[in-house]
């Protein structure tokens, strides 16, 4: 890491000359992280309302980018509050034992046309799995919207075990959808 630019007089110049883009940030109020499963055939959607992301991502140098996400598991919310309460219990997310989930990117591959393939590792309920996540980036000036979706198998993470492992009650496949508002992006 290069030494920080300390003197305010030089700050502007310093940023302009800096080879690494400034760290980007996420605007959580315009972002969402939702997941959908099916309960007895009916789609049931939940969302995480508390999470944060740190990222260093310059669309021109996507390969050098890094993304890390931390999710407060107890923030999992459903339309029905009974479901939110149930989801925190040990058989599902076990929020008491595993209060955080985390994702860390390992590689970001640009596919062209604002599309990227991000691979990384998800830690959820104490289990780790490698994921490949397709990401679309729509950029306007220095702001952008990263979106995408992928599927997980809930049993890979021990979510909904015992009697609830029955797929006819709650499907094993869970679709995760994200829309993340980014600021501080460099020129596209």
């Amino acid at each position: 890491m290069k030494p920080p630019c300390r003197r305010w007089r030089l700050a502007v110049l310093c940023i302009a000359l800096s080879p690494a883009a400034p760290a980007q940030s996420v605007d959580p109020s315009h972002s969402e992280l939702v997941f959908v499963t099916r309960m007895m055939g009916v789609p049931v959607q939940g969302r995480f309302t508390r999470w944060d992301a740190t990222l260093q991502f310059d669309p021109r140098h996507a390969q050098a980018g890094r993304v890390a996400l931390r999710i407060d598991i107890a923030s999992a919310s459903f339309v029905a509050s009974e479901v939110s309460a149930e989801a925190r219990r040990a058989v599902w997310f076990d929020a008491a034992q595993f209060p955080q989930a985390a994702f860390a990117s390992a590689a970001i591959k640009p596919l062209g046309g604002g599309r990227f393939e991000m691979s990384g590792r998800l830690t959820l309920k104490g289990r780790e799995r490698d994921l490949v996540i397709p990401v679309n980036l729509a950029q306007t000036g220095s702001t952008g919207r990263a979106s995408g979706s992928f599927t997980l198998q809930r049993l890979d993470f021990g979510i909904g075990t015992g009697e609830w492992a029955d797929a006819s009650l709650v499907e094993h496949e869970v679709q995760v959808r994200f829309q993340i508002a980014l600021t501080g992006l460099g020129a596209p």
Partner: protein
Amino acid sequence: MSLRHRLAFGVLVLSAGSAGAEPVRYRFDPTHTVAYFELLHFGTSTIRGRFAPLAGEVTIDRVSRQGRVQVEIDTSTASTGVAVLDARLKEADMLAVQAHPRAYLVAERFEFDAAGRVKSLRGEFTLRGASLALELRALRFNCYTSPLLRVEVCGGDFEGSFSRGAAGITHSLPFVSDTVRLLVQVEAIRDDAR
């Protein structure tokens, strides 16, 4: 309520559910769909057991007042809570679960009341490969919106009976009744093209 009012109410209920009327498909909620059976033992007490969960679906057209239900019953799920009885029930001369792992109900003759609730249904019950006519009468029928799933759920309690002898189950007649009373709890979740 006068007859006129009752009719008006019925029309209201029907029209409320009939916007763009067409058959609506519901799929059984396996956690609230159970068939209980009862047989009289030595004219003295009632043997009870159940088949659960039941898989199936029902289609209801409230405007044309038609319906269709098909149910698949896993005969090996027969349970009285008494292990020796359950083992006996599954043998070849009774439910014959190896030769006949499934029983079926298909019913297409639905009757509705003025408010559009299912009143009864008649169809064919296939047990041990034998087809029996079966009528199920609603003791209650209702629809509600599930607060969990945010979709319409319809269901009720239904009652009917059949002769086990007609399905070839004659063991211990007449000490255990030939008539089997069925009590069916059913709830089905509206399944729009999802």
